[in-house]
């Protein structure tokens, strides 16, 4: 580490109190704005906008056609906010979005670089503030970072090392150019263009994202990571991620997000598709810490994401782990379609809603194959005026003989103005399958805090400790780097919610 000030301080050096104090002094650490001249499309959505994006990205004709098809599907779909009350199922409330006011393309001007020297110094400075200095990445514990700044990948590292074992890891637009056959085969095969309103919108206007292909029998030698950032006012982010794990392969993928502070709501509608073939394993971890809005709930990101993995092959496994602390509204259900026999789906989630945040999140486990298994562990924490919903679907289809599911949803309430809700949807069409669901609700007891205070712990430390204990089952599923960050994030997110 050449520049210690630019990297995250080691955890051991800072006590929780210091961390809290550090954060008490500013509203939102990642709230800064980098002025990079953007090459944006004018606001508005039409066939022309889509053609503009496609042309800008030098896409083949089939992809433009695919986008337009998605656009026409989207036009026919109903805006979920416009449904009459008895037909509303989600517990999220937000004003109608004006899709014509959003600019659908924004790219930093300097792209396609041979070395880091060519990167806009301002972008580099932004990364440094975020604690991901590109020049030091090769020294950073084997994590390859494909950094997405606004919607275009500006730098990809470790590519060579991954290429040695045949792994393709890069931006989605590069993959379209270099591996069109793979993209064409798998794009939209897990999340079809008409899947839902926001997935259709994403399919029409997605700008970039990540593409990963792990060849047969290869175990990815490092954890792959993408840092997303949202920048440039009025730009919705529409990433598209596609990960394919061929037979017998393994990959662990990390996704982490921060966003600069701003006053208007930003729509974020990403689509993530995972495909696991025979005996393949994919582990997908997310830390989401986007701007949640100010204390009155103004501003903040709308995080409407479609994430789905298909366990196509026998004995394949997909594991989702998420720590959701940011965004004004989080609305997503990372799901697994367990097609292959003996395939396994897992979902581990911590969702924190504080201030005026709303989260309606959970998972769907669709059991199609024989002896498929799924585990769902969800921890929801609500503080201040936060509203936290676990919504999960478990389906045992006819062919899924011997399938098993276990679901546990625990909610914690901090303060008496918040809400914690659990809405499971269980469908069983097969008598030999077993489904178990349990849920509980609790609060941080005054006696617990008192016990900690008595032993010299501050109230903040006590809350942080209790919350981390509550979430332990999920946090232990995270890769090391993320677990450290998540533990810190949880404490910070709940700062000021007790006492």
């Amino acid at each position, binding site marked *: 580490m050449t520049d210690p000030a630019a990297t995250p301080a080691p955890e051991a050096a800072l006590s929780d109190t210091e961390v809290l104090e550090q954060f008490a002094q500013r509203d939102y650490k990642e709230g800064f704005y980098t002025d990079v001249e953007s090459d944006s499309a004018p606001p508005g959505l039409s066939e022309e906008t889509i053609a503009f994006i496609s042309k800008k990205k030098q896409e083949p004709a089939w992809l433009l056609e695919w986008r337009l098809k998605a656009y026409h599907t989207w036009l026919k779909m109903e805006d979920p906010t416009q449904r009459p009350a*008895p037909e509303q199922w989600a517990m999220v409330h937000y004003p109608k979005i004006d899709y014509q006011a959003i600019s659908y393309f924004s790219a930093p001007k300097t792209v396609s670089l041979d070395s880091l020297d060519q990167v806009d110094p301002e972008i580099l400075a932004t990364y440094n503030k975020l604690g991901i200095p590109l020049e030091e990445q090769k020294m950073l514990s084997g994590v390859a970072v494909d950094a997405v700044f606004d919607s275009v990948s500006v730098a990809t590292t470790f590519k060579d090392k991954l290429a040695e074992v045949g792994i393709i890891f890069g931006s989605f637009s590069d993959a379209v150019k270099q591996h069109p056959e793979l993209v064409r085969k798998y794009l939209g095969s897990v999340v079809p263009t008409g899947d839902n309103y926001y997935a259709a919108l994403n399919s029409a206007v997605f700008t970039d994202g990540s593409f990963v292909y792990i060849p047969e029998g290869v175990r990815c030698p490092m954890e792959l990571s993408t840092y997303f950032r949202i920048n440039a006012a009025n730009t919705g982010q529409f990433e598209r991620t596609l990960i394919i794990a061929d037979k017998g392969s393994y990959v662990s993928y990390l996704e982490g997000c921060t966003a600069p502070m701003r006053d208007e709501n930003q729509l974020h509608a990403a689509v993530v598709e995972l495909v696991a073939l025979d005996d393949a394993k994919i582990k997908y971890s997310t830390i989401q810490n986007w701007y949640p809005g100010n204390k009155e709930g103004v501003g903040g990101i709308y995080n409407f994401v479609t994430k789905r993995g298909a366990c196509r092959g026998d004995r394949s496994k997909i594991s989702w782990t998420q720590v959701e602390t940011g965004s004004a509204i989080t609305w997503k259900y990372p799901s697994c379609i367990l097609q292959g026999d003996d395939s396994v789906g897992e979902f581990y989630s911590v969702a924190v809603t504080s201030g005026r945040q709303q989260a309606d999140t959970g998972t769907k486990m669709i059991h199609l194959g024989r002896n498929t298994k799924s585990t769902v562990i969800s921890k929801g924490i609500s503080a201040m005026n936060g509203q936290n919903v676990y919504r999960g679907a478990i389906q045992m289809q006819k062919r899924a003989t011997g399938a098993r599911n276990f679901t546990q949803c625990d909610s914690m309430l901090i303060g*008496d103005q918040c809400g914690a809700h659990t*809405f499971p949807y*269980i469908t069983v069409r097969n*008598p030999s399958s077993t*489904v178990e669901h*349990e*849920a509980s609700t609790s609060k941080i007891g005054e006696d617990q805090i008192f016990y900690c205070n008595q032993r010299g712990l501050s109230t903040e430390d006590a809350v942080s400790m209790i919350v981390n204990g509550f979430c332990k089952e999920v946090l232990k599923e995270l890769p090391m780097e993320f677990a450290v960050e998540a533990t810190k994030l949880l404490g910070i997110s709940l700062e000021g919610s007790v006492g």
Partner: protein
Amino acid sequence: MAADNDTISGYTAAFEGFEASLNGGARSPLHARRREAIAHLQEHGLPTARFEAWRHTNPAPLANGCFPPVVTAGKLSAEAIQPFVVSGIDGPLLVFADGQFVPGLSRVGDLPDGVQVHSLSAADSETAAIITANLAALALGAEHGFAALNTAFVRDGAVVTIHAGCTMDVPVQILHVSTGQAGLTTPRTLVVAAAGSRASVVETFASTTAGAGVLTSSVAEIVVGAGAVVEHARIHLHGADSLHAGTMHVTEEQDARFTAHTFCLAGRILREDVHTVLRGEHIESTLNGLSLPLGDDHVDNYTTIEHVAPDCSSHELYKGVVGGRAHNVFRGKIHVHQAAQRTDAYQSNQNLLMSDDAEINSKPQLEIYADDVKCSHGSTTGQLDPDALFYLQARGVGLQQARGVLTRAFAGELVDRLQHEGLRTHVERLVSARLDAVLADQGGAR
């Protein structure tokens, strides 16, 4: 939506005809409620498959097309109703045929002081005031189209009122029988138990035929006063081809004890909405349910327990044993308001699938706005424990018999919760007969 509009205009026309036949009754407070209900129906319509509350039950067979209200009740004999009457209970019995009171088959007998049991049409001025205050007095949501349908066409109903501090030990029996006349019938029940009173009511829905083309839209309203103790049982024995959309609305005041039992034993599509509101402190509320669908039956229990005040507890247990190609749906919501601190709520849904073609949907839900609460729910679905079956077989019990023993034990938990012994024996017999049929129905192609 065109079909829906046709349906509503059909009901509007039927309502106008009904109104014209009332001969002066159109000025009664009850008719004002009917008018509100038809207006509600005209504004919101009946539920559609897009309603979140109807996610797993397509309401189209009940909501598409107008079921003309049955005007003239069919003939009913004492023999015909015999199997539905609880033999071990001597108390009052109110019999309704196609929604209309049948005095000849009903009996009231000697009632304790302060207890009144009669049909809606026979109310005296004192109970009329109670009825006006409580019947259809609650505002309906847009999704309550069927409750509005009942109110709009209600002709008669059962009324049970108990004055403060009075006790009715013997269960009051209410029998709603369909004689198989195609069309809409609208059974209605109102129970008002004043402060400190005690009562028990058994409602049975039965049919003398398979009931093709019969839609029963029932509403029961139960008011449990402060400190009152009320037990209510509903036994659904509809015709195998008939349709039912029922609503039960309960309001409970401070220190009340309320227990409901729902036995869904027969009917082609059987939807039952139960909504109880715990308005005072220290209430204890219990909802029990058992569903035994077979063939192409579809049963949907949609329950809501609303904790408005602090320090209450609620318990909910619904079980299903599902055979044939039947479909059992359960939705239970515990809604804890912000003021309802120290709520203790538990909810459980357990299902046994007895055939390869049976299906269940379970939605146990918690919606919690208070922090100092103890709320949990559990849902399990599976088949009979193979180890338990093996244990019995190893001791010389045949497989069919072993299945019978284990399912009866599973369902028996809900029968055992009935307080009155005579009623328990009656329900045990009905459940046992139905279970035999469920176990024998292995589904297969239609």
